[in-house]
């Protein structure tokens, strides 16, 4: 029998005690007690943490009790362990698997009880320097010494003044980061470790050519065929063999147009630049460095420091640009690691550059110099961040002329032009007088010696004279302003001639030649003396035989020229005017009038082209020259001559000297003027494009052909 009630079963009275379990839904009206279905919802589940805590507690207590109960230690140790202890771990950290290393759907490989999440990334090469850097104040400026470093570190290797600083502006502290860390100091927590293993860049194992995402890398070298890259560690071995000219040229041309370059400014070669250069060398063989500003005053020093500190080789240097080659066997992996300088240390205090009274001068002299310097014209104007390679040379040259030199530095920063002044003081030995109005005023000092020899000395200064080879002369005469080189090679001998107006000096030159043989006359040479000198000179072992043979000719050279002029007058090529009538206008008018009437002159031809012809035809032309000179018939050349010269004119452009020679042989009796008198008259005639004339030429040519046949 079932009870039927109006109200649903079970009957709930409004509860006096509100439901303690908030989870239990109030709608579900299950009985609290004795309801098996409700058990899941009724029973309060403990949280994970509580469970684990209880498990741990239990285990702890069990362990403690087992220790307590094992009174006999011997018994405990001798008691064989019934089973090896196997930790079951806790739910969140399960213990190790029985088959370690296996990975399945339900378990993961073993990482150990602690799993490292943020392991710091250690670079392959440990930092080479572990000791603490020391600050050192020395003659060479401020430097930092670290044990194990190849050299003392400085902030700038080229711009540190070579004077001992007076004092420091701040506490001596090396600007490097802490050396105890395995990674460079970035100011932040280390990044999470990547899954990929860090790979050190080895220059000899390049990434494959077609690989994507790889920045271009140049292969090591250049190597001669058969030689490969080697792992070497010393500077000389890394550089390898000295580069050949073609290699240098190739490297330079490949690097000229790169945009990737390092800039060197007023701080010169800084410490961090050493690292930058190695970074550039990672990808390219040649590093392009552009120097501007103060550091260019002493480019030699910059190159020297670069080669010394970094170990590359300077292959090209022009103005402010330097190309630095990394070395044939350079490997980025084995490069020296320098600690980076993290900030620019404050420069220490140096002694003043300019004193009120510089040494060697009294106050009065100094003020007088400063006053004079205000009116002096500056030798050059320097621009900001310019290239001042020639400054030292120009200052030295200017000192030859005047003891004070002024350089205009308007626009340059104060510290910069003071640095330039300091460098000049060392390089050009000079004394700085003033820096006012953005100008540098320098004095050459009392111990200044001119590098040029003084021309007015007439004595034999140099007894044993240097030999000037042919090549040296050419260079010397081409580079007029390289006074140093000229000075070393030449002597004061030529100077003698300058200031002696009479001809005695000159004659004494020839006389001295005879003096070598013992004859001592210094008179104007008579023909007999000429003969004797010639003969004796023939015996004497002088390298220039030709000059002796032409000596006798030199005497009459002036007369010869005069004779040539007379010829010209006679031939109608020249016109003598009255001495009274030399007004420019009249001269011009007469010249114009005359030029229409005069015979056309010869055309200048550079002698070199006809050289081989000349050699062979020397003797013959002697005679012919005379004939030609005697027959001054330049106006109407003989037909045969015309013919020959016509042909010659045609062939001139071919530079076929042999052709000319053949013709010369053929036209034996024809006069071949060496001085190109007739050729070029004809050339002029032919050049004038007049139809009539052309026919004449053609006819003459035809005539000549007949002649030949």
């Amino acid at each position, binding site marked *: 029998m079932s009870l039927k009630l109006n109200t649903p079963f079970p009957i709930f009275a409004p509860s006096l005690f509100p439901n303690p379990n908030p989870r239990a839904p109030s709608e579900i009206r299950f009985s609290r007690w004795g309801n098996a279905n409700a058990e899941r919802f009724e029973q309060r589940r403990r949280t994970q943490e509580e469970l684990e805590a209880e498990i741990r507690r239990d285990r702890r207590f069990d362990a403690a009790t087992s220790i307590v109960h094992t009174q006999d230690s011997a018994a405990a140790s001798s008691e064989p362990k019934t089973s090896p202890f196997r930790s079951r771990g806790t739910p969140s950290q399960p213990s190790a698997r029985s088959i370690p290393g296996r990975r399945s759907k339900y378990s993961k490989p073993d990482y150990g009880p602690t799993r490292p999440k943020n392991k710091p990334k250690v670079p392959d090469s440990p930092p080479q320097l572990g000791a603490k850097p020391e600050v050192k104040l020395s003659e060479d400026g401020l430097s930092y010494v670290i044990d194990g470093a190849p050299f003392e570190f400085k902030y700038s290797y080229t711009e540190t003044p070579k004077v001992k600083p007076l004092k420091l502006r701040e506490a001596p502290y090396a600007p490097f980061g802490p050396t105890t860390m395995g990674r460079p100091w970035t100011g932040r927590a280390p990044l999470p470790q990547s899954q990929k293993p860090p790979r050190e860049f080895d220059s000899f194992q390049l990434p494959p050519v077609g690989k994507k995402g790889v920045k271009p890398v140049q292969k090591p070298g250049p190597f001669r065929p058969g030689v490969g890259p080697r792992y070497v560690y010393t500077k000389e071995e890394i550089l390898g063999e000295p580069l050949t000219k073609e290699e240098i040229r190739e490297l330079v041309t490949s690097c000229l147009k790169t945009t990737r370059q390092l800039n060197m400014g007023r701080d010169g070669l800084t410490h961090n630049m050493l690292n930058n250069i190695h970074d550039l060398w990672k990808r390219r063989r040649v590093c392009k460095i552009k120097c501007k500003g103060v550091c260019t005053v002493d480019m030699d020093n910059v190159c020297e420091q670069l080669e010394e500190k970094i170990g590359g080789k300077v292959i090209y240097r022009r103005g402010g640009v330097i190309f630095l080659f990394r070395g044939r066997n350079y490997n980025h992996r084995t490069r020296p690691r320098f600690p980076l300088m993290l900030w620019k240390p404050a420069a220490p205090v140096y002694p003043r550059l300019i004193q009120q009274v510089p040494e060697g001068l009294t106050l009065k002299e100094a003020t007088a110099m400063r006053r004079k310097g205000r009116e002096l014209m500056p*030798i050059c104007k320097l621009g900001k961040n310019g290239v001042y390679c020639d400054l030292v040379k120009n200052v030295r040259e200017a000192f030859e002329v005047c003891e004070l030199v002024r350089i205009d530095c308007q626009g340059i920063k104060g510290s910069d032009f003071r640095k330039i002044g300091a460098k000049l003081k060392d390089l050009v030995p000079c004394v700085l007088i003033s820096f006012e109005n953005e100008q540098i005023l320098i004095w050459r000092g009392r111990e200044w010696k001119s590098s040029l020899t003084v021309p007015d000395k007439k004595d034999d200064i140099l007894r044993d004279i240097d030999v000037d080879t042919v090549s040296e002369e050419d260079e010397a005469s081409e580079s*007029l302003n390289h006074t140093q080189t000229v000075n070393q090679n030449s002597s004061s001998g030529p100077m003698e001639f300058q200031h002696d107006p009479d001809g005695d000096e000159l004659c004494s030159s020839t006389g001295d030649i005879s003096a070598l043989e013992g004859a001592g006359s210094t008179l104007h040479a008579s023909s007999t003396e000429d003969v004797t000198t010639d003969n004796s000179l023939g015996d004497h072992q002088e390298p220039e035989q030709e000059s002796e043979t032409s000596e006798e000719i030199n005497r009459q050279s002036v007369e010869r020229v005069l004779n040539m*002029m007379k010829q010209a007058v006679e031939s109608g090529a020249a016109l003598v005017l009255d001495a009274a009538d030399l007004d420019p*206008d009249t001269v011009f008018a007469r010249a114009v009038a005359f030029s229409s009437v005069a015979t056309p002159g010869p055309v200048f031809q550079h002698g070199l082209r006809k050289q081989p012809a000349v050699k062979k035809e020397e003797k013959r032309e002697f005679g012919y020259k005379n004939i030609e000179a005697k027959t001054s018939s330049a106006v109407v050349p003989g037909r045969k001559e015309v013919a020959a010269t016509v042909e010659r004119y045609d062939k001139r452009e071919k530079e076929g000297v042999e052709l000319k020679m053949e013709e010369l042989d053929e036209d034996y009796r024809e006069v071949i003027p060496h001085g190109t008198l007739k050729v070029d008259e004809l050339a002029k005639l032919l050049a004038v494009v007049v139809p009539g004339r052309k026919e004449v030429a053609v006819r003459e040519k035809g005539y000549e052909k007949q002649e030949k046949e």
Partner: protein
Amino acid sequence: MFCSAYTPSCIYHFHVNKPVCRKPRFRVCSSTSSESDRFKVEYTPWLIVGLGNPGNKYHGTRHNVGFEMIDKLARKEGVLMNTIQSKALIGIGAIEEVPILLAKPQTYMNFSGESVGSLAAHYQVPLRHILLVYDEMALPNGVLRLQPKGGQGYHNGVKSVMGNLDGRRNFPRLSIGIGHPPGNMDMKAFLLQKFSTSERRQIDESLEQGSEAVKTLVLSGFSEGISRFNLVQKYKFHKV
């Protein structure tokens, strides 16, 4: 008059045979003889050409400093310039046994080359003995420079001379500085202007110095004296 023992061509061969060492030679000298041995003066004639425009209209202008230099030289050496040959006014003289030929081409500046070339050929003056005297805008006013060779530097006269000398550039030159045209002044107008008084004074001084230098050059060639001269000229206004 004409000796058969020698001919002019001999000299010419001598110089042509040795094209490489055309500069005056310095000889090996082991004895203690005086140093005058060491330089052998060459007696080949020098052709000294001054560039300029003919006529009174252009007398004393900047472009005509070449003419003024030649006049000064002529006065110093006592050379009378009274011959017209190959469109130029020439005079023959000598500086201590070295024959010189002073020439003032009477063509206008652009065609000077024709007369120079023809003169050089006629008197058989080798290229290295042709001295060209002309005005140079790259140098400041009154500064001289003696060079063994050079370029044409926007100078039409020099350009024409180079063209007529077989395209050769390696003949010596004496450049007389006249300075830049001020501001935006037209170059041609500047060149055809006469000198101002202060400039005139500077130029006169420099002509004096220049004639001395020409003498040195003719007698001893391009040597240390010439480099010293160039140096002194470059810095002569930087004196106090």
